[in-house]
């Protein structure tokens, strides 16, 4: 099973945790990317984030996330994959993205999560705008 959602409201793990249940899986793994207060820039300076805002090309992002989930499912023999990304404002300490998967053995679930996140961060058309404590804003285009 594959569940892909773009949401505008807080992501609660409890709402998604049962989606990857399967009696033939022994390993369930989850990753949540959370808005962090401090960012250390390449020059070593620390910037304090006030809040984040995410924008997406929604139809393309959903299609790309679905492709990514299907590729991960094949590659790592996953029973189920959940990818939820929040759009709009995501305050400090709240999740912008949640990825979950289940597999028979733990090595596959452990390998799948970073694989999915690396590709999500490279290719899925979603962008983050930082608002710093001085109210300055910046789109992140790495």
């Amino acid at each position: 099973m594959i569940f892909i959602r773009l949401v505008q409201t807080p992501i609660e793990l409890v709402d998604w945790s049962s989606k990857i249940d399967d009696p033939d899986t022994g390993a369930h793994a989850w990753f949540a990317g959370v808005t962090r207060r401090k960012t250390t820039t390449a020059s070593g300076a620390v910037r304090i984030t006030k809040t984040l805002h995410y924008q997406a090309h929604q139809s393309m992002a959903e299609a790309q996330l679905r492709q990514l989930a299907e590729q991960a499912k094949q590659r790592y023999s996953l029973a189920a994959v959940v990818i939820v990304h929040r759009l709009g404002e995501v305050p400090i300490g709240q999740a912008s993205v949640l990825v979950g998967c289940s597999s028979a053995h733990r090595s596959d679930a452990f390998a799948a999560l970073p694989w999915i996140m690396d590709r999500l961060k490279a290719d899925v058309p979603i962008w983050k705008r930082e608002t710093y404590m001085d109210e300055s804003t910046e789109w992140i285009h790495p």
Partner: protein
Amino acid sequence: MTSTAPLRILLFAGVRDAAGCDVANVTVDDPVTAAKVIETVAAQIPAAAPLIGVSRLAVDGQYVAPDHVIDCSDVELALIPPVSGG
């Protein structure tokens, strides 16, 4: 003589803010490559030209290579600057 076609390209994030608009309307030779579309948008939004130069073009929700030739009818084009989801 080549014919020309109007194209509508969805803009996002830093490019959208620089353009002050979520769509760029440009006129291009038809057929046209993805690279040429990107170049044309960059010329129209000079404030974002460096960012547009590192952006990719997506056709109907799929990335295409710079030399991909676009059929100007009936496609959704989107200019995708470097992404930062997650």
